């Protein structure tokens, strides 16, 4: 081992000069939320950077629903779970079949369908929100979970189809030919060849759709209204309705709500980064 030269120290110092502000910038809002979650009310509002008596009492209040704003916490948590899982599953179904049809079966009009999907992908979701709200009203789906599920599937599937199509195009065509020689029907080809080979991309896309639905605020807030129907993010937004909102409880609920997606993200990071950025970089 040799001693670092002055030049190396200089480089290292400059890197730290970038790294430390980046670290602070990244963590401050999250740390602030965490701090509120573990602080008793008095400490939280006293501007302390670490509470004198850190406590898990706030979590207890949330889990036992012991506050006016939290009386439907578990129902809302469950709503979020059901909707996220349903969106993940339905998006996978719709997008996988579509990508298979376009990429492997070369269905007539597949290219047009792909372009239409891409077009939807680029329309900002907030622009579609107002007409979508009225459409769900016309279909009689307002205030039903199906409204949110179908809206989120609509928003998630274009990107899902595009990513899956890119991935399927890379599978060698000989595989399909061999399977067809062996007498496989297109459905068998789909079930026995295509889906197993596409597993990594399917995991990525399922996770993508699931997280998209779990994190969605605008559509959930427009399409659902009853306290026992809404999802957690909408419940969090509703805290703002009162001036004397219990911030420490809001931040605790927010922290609980943020944990599952963060955990899922880090667990599936390998798939997410490989599967999802590959498409964006190809330009």
């Amino acid at each position, binding site marked *: 081992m040799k001693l670092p030269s002055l030049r190396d120290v200089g480089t290292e110092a400059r890197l730290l000069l970038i790294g430390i502000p980046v670290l602070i910038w990244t963590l401050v809002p999250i740390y602030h939320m965490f701090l509120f979650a573990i602080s008793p009310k008095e400490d939280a509002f006293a501007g302390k950077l670490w509470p004198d008596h850190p406590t898990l009492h706030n979590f207890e209040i949330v889990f036992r629903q012991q506050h006016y704003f939290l009386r439907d916490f578990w129902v809302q948590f469950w709503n979020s779970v059901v909707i996220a899982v349903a969106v993940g599953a339905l998006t996978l179904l719709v997008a996988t079949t579509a990508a298979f049809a*376009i990429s492997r079966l070369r269905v007539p009009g597949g290219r047009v369908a792909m372009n239409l999907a891409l*077009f939807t992908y680029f329309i900002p979701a907030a622009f579609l929100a107002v007409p979508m709200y009225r459409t769900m009203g016309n279909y009689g789906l307002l205030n039903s979970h199906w409204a949110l599920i179908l809206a989120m599937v609509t928003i998630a599937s274009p990107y899902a189809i595009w990513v899956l199509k890119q991935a399927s195009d890379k599978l060698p065509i000989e595989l399909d030919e061999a399977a067809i020689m062996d007498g496989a029907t297109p459905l068998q080809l789909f079930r026995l060849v295509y889906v197993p080979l596409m597993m990594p991309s399917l995991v990525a896309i399922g996770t993508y759709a699931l997280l998209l639905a779990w994190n969605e605020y605008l559509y959930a807030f427009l399409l659902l209204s009853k306290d026992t129907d809404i999802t957690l993010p909408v419940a969090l937004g509703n805290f703002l309705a009162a001036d004397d909102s219990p911030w420490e409880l809001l931040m605790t609920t927010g922290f609980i709500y943020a944990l599952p997606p963060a955990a899922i993200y880090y667990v599936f990071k390998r798939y997410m980064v490989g599967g999802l950025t590959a498409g964006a970089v190809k330009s």
Partner: protein
Amino acid sequence: MATLTVATTDETVARGPRAPRLTTPQVWGIALLSPYILVFIAFVVYPVGYGLWLARHPASYVALYHDPIFARAAVNTLIFLVIGINFKMLVALFLSGFFIQERRWIKWLSVLFILPWAVPSIPTILSVRFMFNPEWGVINQLIFKFTGDDGPNWLNDPAVALTMAIGVHIWKSLPFWTLILITGRLAIAQDLFEAAAVDGASGWQKFRYVTWPSMRTLYVTCTLLSMIWTLGDFNSVYLLTGGGPADLTHVLATLGIRYLRLDQLDLAMAAIVCALPLVLPLVYFMMKRLSR
């Protein structure tokens, strides 16, 4: 529907090989594509058509033209896109160069750096909102502790409030774009840099003549994509400022919802239609680029 299509084709097959017909895989293709087509018709074609139909009255546009909040929202949106996004992408380009340095601590930092992208935006935006609360927020508490003065009423100043909304947006999406640009940087052949080093190129020259030419297309694509998506960024503004103070920090994404709340649906749609001349060329450009 699927079975129906299959049945009709079997008849065509029976009629003889010369007639133009669909092969079995194609029939299956149509059947497998149909779920998405149904979703597309029911939840894209119908709402878009309905929205355009609602926005058909010229009177709506006159009303918008006379609404100072609309003009303000349009200006805010442009500031958000032109200044906010370009600043964000420059920072992302810079940070992508930082994160490809091979150090153990930078690896760890990059894991933490993804957090804002991995956690949902609602709780963190609310966290920032409370941090800047004039009376009880931690920022003003600290200002009071150290100076004895009351801190400013941050979110009550439209310029500060909009800047902070842009800041929240950047906080949330910077990791994603940095990650993409890192992938772009790592795709550059290493021997180009070695050759440049042999020729005695400085750090800036390496960036200017090696990195930038290889990254330019990706960078422009990312910037345009980020602009389109940011047009739909409802949360950063709505949950931080609620469009206030005095409706001065609205952007187009929140304005539509404001009109919806006021039961002026035609105005909501007209406001979105007004943004289309800006959006559609960008969308067309991106489609050309990605559909290859």
